[in-house]
């Protein structure tokens, strides 16, 4: 039992005790820890230093940071942040600023109000951490941090208590808040963001394909097990060797680097001309990659709303893909696009630098002469790659800047898909055929748990396209000519000693199974938690039987369900609240026993005074009543165990009830 008489001058500003300060330090630690890996190095060090200083002040009684040091630090910190990021607004500098403010606020804890500021900053930091990572592990970590921060909030309001008791209470309250969270999460009408222009850094740099290609640019990706996208086919999935996910098409070549051409910048709303053939429908869940490319199978026939197709058949979205998105496509796998092609695009696909790579040019001219027709030239070129001793490797030797294709074709002969695709297109153009490089992803791995096809960055691929007059653009994959298994089974069959990415290894079946399960769980998390958007919400709600899931209906349901839950919680609270304990019931029973004889207790009377008053009037009842009242006073005010006292009081009450009217006997 505690009794405090606060100074009236500042009723809302009671000073913080050591225990509350300790809790606020815990708040700062749990709010800053999730940001440890993306604060700029110097700020991380400053934050750690200031935190440790405050910790030492709390534990060891070191002197704290004075006002001018704090002012100096905030000015220097803001300057440093704006120097590091080039500005003070936006996500990254914002988070850095919040971290600095939080840790400086720790040095300025005077009152409970400062404590509340720290707690709110802590919650904000948790939200900010979600802009960096939303994995299940991160979610678990941050919700645990939320438990700590909420416990600190209780410590700020309540009397001193054991840390474990506070954590338990905070956990208990959060558990009660959970149903509200679920209802709001499912039913709160989702608005497609963003509400205002996001700063450029809203989503950090991502790995993925780029809009240019030079030797080494794709083999770099091959080491990344990161998932590029997932696909689920409406019906049976086609075999992996037919899955060419088309990305940027590279037409321009400067002797070393391949770049997108004019055809990539010309877009129409729909595919340039209808694609005829049996269609495969599938849904692609694309990870954010910071470009406006969507990945669909060759050749795409039906697009999701808002998507466009460039003249070189790459699917583009209206905006940069900053968040994971889900789209439904239809493709005709056997179709060849471009029977009617713009002559400008065909001309662009013939262009070569004026000079360089003379040996390759000579070889191409020779092959062209031997073959006669365009189609026969293509076959001859493929035969060349198949026949000669080319080696497919993830670690090719470095090629010289000039005449790189000559060096590759005639000297090193070791390379990755971009080497083969680039060399093939060069040879084809040198032989007079319109050809271009297509980058994208090839294949994908079917997850046996949820049947999604998972396409990783290591599936990034480059192949070639040759335009034949009667046929349109024909896909030619020279890599498949060298290593057919590359397009059938992925990278798993590379020669021994090659640094195969861990996720692409074929052995270790159990490990693969485990990984499939883990990824299926992750995918479910992505599909149902992280990508729970307007569309998914409507889908789910209509599946749950909501006839018209518009925002009015959702809001009505949300309000109704929250009301029901609040009501249930209230009932639970009220059920327990008025329950008087056994002692009080026994005491009330004593009153009922004596009140009919006019010997009831006055409201203001203490138990002992009451006993004496009645004892004076009715000496015959004195013994029992005194005993009962003493028992009650001892149990209620003196800390005696209440249960035996209650039993004894009940016994005495029965005796008193028998004797309260002696004159009638």
């Amino acid at each position: 039992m505690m009794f405090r008489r606060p100074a009236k001058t500042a009723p809302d500003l009671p000073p913080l005790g050591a225990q509350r300060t300790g809790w606020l330090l815990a708040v700062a630690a749990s709010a800053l820890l999730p940001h440890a890996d993306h604060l700029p190095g110097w700020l991380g060090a400053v934050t750690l230093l200031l935190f440790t200083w405050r910790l030492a002040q709390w534990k060891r009684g070191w002197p704290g940071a004075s006002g001018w040091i704090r002012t100096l630090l905030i000015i220097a910190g803001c300057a440093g942040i704006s120097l590091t990021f080039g500005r003070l607004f936006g996500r990254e500098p914002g988070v850095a600023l919040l971290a600095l403010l939080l840790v400086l606020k720790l040095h300025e804890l005077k009152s409970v109000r400062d404590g509340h500021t720290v707690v709110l900053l802590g919650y904000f930091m948790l939200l900010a951490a979600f802009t960096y990572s939303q994995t299940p592990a991160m979610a678990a970590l941050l919700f645990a941090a939320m438990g700590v921060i909420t416990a600190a909030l209780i410590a700020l309001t309540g009397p001193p208590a054991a840390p474990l008791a506070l954590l338990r209470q905070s956990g208990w309250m959060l558990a009660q808040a959970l149903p509200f969270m679920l209802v709001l999460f499912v039913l709160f009408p989702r608005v497609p963001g963003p509400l205002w222009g996001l700063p450029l850094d809203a989503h950090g740099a991502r790995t993925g394909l780029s809009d240019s290609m030079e030797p080494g640019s794709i083999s770099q990706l091959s080491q990344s097990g990161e998932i590029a996208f997932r696909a689920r086919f409406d019906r049976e999935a086609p075999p992996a060797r037919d899955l060419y996910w088309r990305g940027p098409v590279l037409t321009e070549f400067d002797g070393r680097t391949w770049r997108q051409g004019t055809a990539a910048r010309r877009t129409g709303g729909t595919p340039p001309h209808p694609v005829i053939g049996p269609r495969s429908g599938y849904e692609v869940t694309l990870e954010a990659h910071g470009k406006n490319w969507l990945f669909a199978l060759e050749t795409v026939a039906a697009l999701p709303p808002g998507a466009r197709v460039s003249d070189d058949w790459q699917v583009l979205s209206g905006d940069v893909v900053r968040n994971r998105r889900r789209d439904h496509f239809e493709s005709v796998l056997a179709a060849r696009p471009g029977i009617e092609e713009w002559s400008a695009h065909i001309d662009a696909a013939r262009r070569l630098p004026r000079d360089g790579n003379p040996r390759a040019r000579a070889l191409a001219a020779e092959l062209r002469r031997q073959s006669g027709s365009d189609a026969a030239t293509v076959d001859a070129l493929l035969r060349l790659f198949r026949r000669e001793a080319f080696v497919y490797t993830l670690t090719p030797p470095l090629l010289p800047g000039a005449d790189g294709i000559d060096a590759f074709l005639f000297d090193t002969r070791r390379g990755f898909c971009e080497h083969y695709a680039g060399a093939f297109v060069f040879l084809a153009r040198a032989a007079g055929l319109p050809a271009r490089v297509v980058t994208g992803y090839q294949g994908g791995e079917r997850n046996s748990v949820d049947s999604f096809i998972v396409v990783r960055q290591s599936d990034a691929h480059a192949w070639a396209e040759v335009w034949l007059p009667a046929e349109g653009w024909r896909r030619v994959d020279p890599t498949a000519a060298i290593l057919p298994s590359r397009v059938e089974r992925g990278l798993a069959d590379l020669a021994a000693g090659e640094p195969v990415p861990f996720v692409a290894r074929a052995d270790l079946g159990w490990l693969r199974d485990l990984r499939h399960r883990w990824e299926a769980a992750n995918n479910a998390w992505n599909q149902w938690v992280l990508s729970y958007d307007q569309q998914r919400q409507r889908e789910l709600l209509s599946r749950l039987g909501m006839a018209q899931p518009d925002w009015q209906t959702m809001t009505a349901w949300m309000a109704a369900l929250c009301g029901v839950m609040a009501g249930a919680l209230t009932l639970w609270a009220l059920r327990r609240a008025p329950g008087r304990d056994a002692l009080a019931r026994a005491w009330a029973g004593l009153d009922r026993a004596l009140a009919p004889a006019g010997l009831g207790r006055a409201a203001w009377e203490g138990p002992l005074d009451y006993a004496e008053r009645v004892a004076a009037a009715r000496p015959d009842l004195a013994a029992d009543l005194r005993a009962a009242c003493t028992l009650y006073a001892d149990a209620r005010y003196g800390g005696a165990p209440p249960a035996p006292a209650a039993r004894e009081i009940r016994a005495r009450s029965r005796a008193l009830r028998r004797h309260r009217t002696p004159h009638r006997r």
Partner: protein
Amino acid sequence: MWHALRDAVRRWLASLGGSPALPLTLDRRRIFVLPSAVGLVWGGALVAMLLTAINYTLSLGFALVFMLAGLGQVALLHTFRNLLGLTLKELPPEPVFAGQPARFALALDNASSRARPALRLAMAGSDEALDIDVAADAALTFHLRVPATRRGWIAPGRLTLSTRYPLGLIRAWSYGQPQQRCLVYPQPESDRPPLPPGDAGTLGLRARGDGSDEFAALRAHRAADSPRHVAWKAWARSPDAPLLTKQFDGQDGGELWLDLERLSATMPLEQRLARLTGWALDADAAGLRYGLALPGQRIAPDRGPAHRARVLAALALFGLPS
């Protein structure tokens, strides 16, 4: 104007669940809840966080914000429950002298198995508040002090029992109205002249201070007699005999009358009452028999605590509307 309006609202709120007169068990009709200042800031922060979550399409951000919103709802209930079922009682307040704070004794009874931490009790008219934690199955008595500057009855102000526990986001409060007034005696004059002479023995009283009073006689003991004057030796000799009281010359010869009208009429009334109060205290301390004469009221000379209380009460209430 604003204060009057606020007071009217509070009076109306206090009467919502029936009369707020103590003793009072707080049921749900008597407990009011509103967000505290911290709670309002918290709500604003939640809106900002919601906008951030929408803008960055953060699903887990939504989850965080909704969790905190749910927490607010849960806090409301817990705060409400922290007051529910508490019983407020009052004890008779002890009279005080003007200038001292009136102390209203109250008891808070928690007949439930839950502790009730972080309660705040304030009384209108008092400039201090009490922060109380009541353990499970426990009762607590405490005093609220109200400055008493004028003699007479002082009525207790409206009690406000409030709490923000556990999260500080919500304030729950309830009103109670204690019924028992506190009697405020006049403030004894500080530099008062010595006691006036008694009616018969002129300066005999003054001599008492020298220790020269003489034992005169024994008479039967009366309840109001000071124990210092009981003839203990006589009683020790024969314990079965009734108690006797020693009578002294000085007391026997003169009865001290404290008479308002004998004081100079040029003195303000309050000062005269203050002087009489001081003299009554002096006479009581000296163990004298003294009476009080006020216009229209006389209290016969006597001594003892009950007599003192009667005299002081008469002085406190003189001339005041009852």
